[in-house]
């Protein structure tokens, strides 16, 4: 291994999803109801070829890991899909840092969805606070 090569481990995340359709839809052939999807993250496996997540550390079988996943809604002009999207953002060895990542994502989502109400000064202050969150503030 050369000096510039990073130690990292790839993981494949096992999950299952369940969707059901709800709501009325018209007789229009293109119309459809909304869907509601729930997800269950069931496990993590060492992956050598096509990992879902890569951790910047060496991990072995039977190690304890924490997966940070985001669940988001999608849709089109014919219907809304609540909780349809599932993306595994990162894998962590420590719960504190996994929680910090989760908090960063939630904070940015809040910022993204309301940032028109921020002035320039408060916007930069808010971003700086999120970027420099100490690890123990996640609890």
């Amino acid at each position, binding site marked *: 291994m050369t000096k510039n090569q990073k130690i990292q481990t790839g993981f494949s995340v096992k999950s299952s999803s369940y969707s059901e359709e709800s709501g009325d839809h018209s007789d229009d052939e293109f119309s459809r109801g909304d869907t509601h999807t729930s997800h269950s993250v069931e496990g993590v496996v*060492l992956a050598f070829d096509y990992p879902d997540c890569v951790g910047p550390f060496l991990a072995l079988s039977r190690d304890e890991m924490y997966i940070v*996943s985001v*669940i988001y*809604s999608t849709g089109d002009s014919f219907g809304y899909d609540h909780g349809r999207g599932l993306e595994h953002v*990162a894998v962590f060895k420590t719960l504190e*840092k996994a929680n910090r990542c989760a908090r960063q*994502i939630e904070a940015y989502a809040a910022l993204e*969805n309301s940032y028109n109400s921020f002035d320039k000064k408060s916007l930069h202050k808010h971003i700086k606070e999120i970027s420099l969150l100490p690890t123990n503030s996640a609890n």
Partner: protein
Amino acid sequence: MKDKNEGWVLKDISAGLVFLNENDEPIETSTPWYGYFENLDYVNVSAHTVEMDVLPSLDRHVSSARPAPRKNIKPK
């Protein structure tokens, strides 16, 4: 300008520059981040014990293995 500053913020968000991994480095991702932020429902943190994947072909080979048939031995 306000629009330029807002664009700079969004550009940073889409690049995922400020999300930190286990080593406090930026998380690198090839997935655009916009979808998460605009329509985020929740963030899930789950704990798991890492498993080693078992090759299916090896599993089949073991389960289908049978002992060789016994030869008929005639009594003397």
